[in-house]
């Protein structure tokens, strides 16, 4: 009897497996000779360029110091390391032999030309919303890049995740390929923004928290997630920004990488805004309009608080002659040992740049944000603040942009912790962070493992 049951179960399992395999099985799409540049319309390529920038394709498909789009970028996930692939039109190592339908299948269904399932680190759960028109433009853009011969390193994933077949199951659960549906009640601008945010922009890939299987938690849509060890702040009503974001402020931030009353793009977001600086302004405005509406209007209390903060930041004088006085007063609030006193560190290290919203004439320097305005300080986790203190913001080769020195060498863990706690207490009305010390150690370790 027992044997029969087992046999029966096995049979069921076999049938199910067969059904699953049949479901999961994808055939290869026949390779073609790489199409010539002349087969693509220039305007189409240009539109594709702007879409590729919105999609931030270059970030995950370019190795550090490698050729653009030639793959090799290591994306470290909780399941192991996945390498961005070579999407230049190289015939052997890139997508040179892909047809438009093969490209569409990859974008919409997460299946490559050969028929293999792609890991959802490639965010086809978003790209499935991209229209065929836009896919065509994107295809035209990618197929006219410099072909680069570069083998993508094999992924390094833990068993059993190295079996791609399993991805089909994941898709069954989480991939909804209905395409983007506009909301007729909203403006064209809003709808374009929604389409870009939900589709190619794949904002949710970082800004939405994920479940144990690595899928976005739809009930916490854009409620704040994680990206390469950084916290990706909430873009919905859960935003903790001290100064409520507006579409205009978002536009400035997304185009220029900083908005003087909100924040400077750090971590992986720096690359996103760098790309967006080259996209037509109307597209970025649509994104800003939509995100602002997802965040919703700020209530009166928040508005009032915001204007107080701005007023304070305007007249801030921490870096003035009364610095030691400020420091002494603040030191009273803290029971830390004097050598790791956050207030003194702030005054001696940070204040010279992060001084006031409006720089005093003739002594302006460093152009950094007044910390009372910073979203980074009011996030639920200190991880971004810690990382930027330790790592700084490296200067871009010959480009204008923020420079912040990293303090990993200058400060001990205890000093970084004291500074972080001091900043949180001084510049926000939010509760103390509780895991500062652990996060400092963790962040330092992650840099030690991946030295710049």
């Amino acid at each position, binding site marked *: 009897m027992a044997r029969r049951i087992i046999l029966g179960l096995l049979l069921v399992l076999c049938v199910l497996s067969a059904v699953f395999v049949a479901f999961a099985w994808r055939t290869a799409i026949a390779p073609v000779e790489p199409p010539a540049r002349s087969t693509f319309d220039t305007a189409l390529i240009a539109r594709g360029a702007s879409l590729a920038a919105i999609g931030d394709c270059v970030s995950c498909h370019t190795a550090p110091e490698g050729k653009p789009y030639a793959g090799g970028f290591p994306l470290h996930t909780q399941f192991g390391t996945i390498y961005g692939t070579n999407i230049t039109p190289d015939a052997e190592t890139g997508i040179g032999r892909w047809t438009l339908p093969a490209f569409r299948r990859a974008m919409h269904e997460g299946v490559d030309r050969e028929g293999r399932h792609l890991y959802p680190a490639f965010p086809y759960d978003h790209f499935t919303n991209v229209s065929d028109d836009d896919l065509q433009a994107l295809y035209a853009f990618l197929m006219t890049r410099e072909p680069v011969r570069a083998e993508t390193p094999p992924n390094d994933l833990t068993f059993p995740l190295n079996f791609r077949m399993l991805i089909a199951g994941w898709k069954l659960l989480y991939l909804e390929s209905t395409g983007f549906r506009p909301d007729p009640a909203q403006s064209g601008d809003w709808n374009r923004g929604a389409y870009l945010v939900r589709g190619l922009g794949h904002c949710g890939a970082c800004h939405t928290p994920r479940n144990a299987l690595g899928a976005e938690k739809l009930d916490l849509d854009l409620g704040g997630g994680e990206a390469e060890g950084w916290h990706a702040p909430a873009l919905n009503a859960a935003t903790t920004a001290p100064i409520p974001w507006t579409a205009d402020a978002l536009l400035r931030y997304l185009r220029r990488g900083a908005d003087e009353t909100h924040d400077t793009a750090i971590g992986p977001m720096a690359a996103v805004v760098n790309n967006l600086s080259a996209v037509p302004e109307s597209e970025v405005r649509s994104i800003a309009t939509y995100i602002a509406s997802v965040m919703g209007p700020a209530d009166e209390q928040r508005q009032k608080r915001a204007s107080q903060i701005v007023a304070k930041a305007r007249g801030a004088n921490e870096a003035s002659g009364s*610095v*030691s006085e400020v*420091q002494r007063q603040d030191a009273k609030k803290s029971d830390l040992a*004097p*050598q*790791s*006193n956050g207030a*003194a*560190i702030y*005054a*001696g*290290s940070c204040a*010279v*740049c992060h001084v006031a919203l409006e720089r005093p004439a003739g002594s302006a*320097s*460093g152009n950094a944000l007044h910390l009372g305005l910073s979203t980074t300080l009011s996030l639920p986790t200190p991880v971004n603040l810690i990382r930027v203190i330790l790592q*700084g913001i*490296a*200067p871009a080769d010959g480009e204008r942009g923020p*420079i*912040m*020195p990293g*303090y*990993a*060498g*200058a*400060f*001990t863990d205890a*000093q970084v912790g004291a500074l972080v706690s001091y900043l949180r207490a001084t510049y926000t009305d939010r509760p103390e962070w509780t895991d500062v010390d652990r996060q400092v150690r963790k962040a330092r370790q992650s840099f030690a493992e991946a030295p*710049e």
Partner: protein
Amino acid sequence: MNLDINGKTFQIDADPTTPLLYILRDQLQLNGAKFGCGLGQCGACTVIVDKQPVFSCITPVSALQGRKIRTIEGLGTLENPGPVQRAFIEEQAAQCGYCIPGMMMRAQALLEQNPAPSKSDIRRYMNANLCRCGTHMRILRAVERAAAFVKDGGKGGTAG
């Protein structure tokens, strides 16, 4: 407040927020570290704290008690220059020389962490420091030469 600089202990009296650079230059008369920007953007003020290169212009002394601070004055003297100094002299790696002490301290920190850096390791590590005279090629060569000196026990080279 006590500071440990080049192996000596100095008693200093200063506002705890004072960046180390001003204590070095103004109170202790150590000229090596230079003021370039005061913003942590150029590296002219680089010193070593424990094992790491640090911008002394934005590091308050209160954060440095009990830690080991080193400046170029600790690398050697005019009469008896250390390996990094010898390497910079032999490669003639200076024009105005203003950026050079900061370069040498960063190079020293690199060589202590990685005694055999590749050319690209050196470039990447030195990137935080600016030189306006365009002495870069010689600085890179000097760091390589210093690595060679360090490798043969600091005996190589001839004193300038």
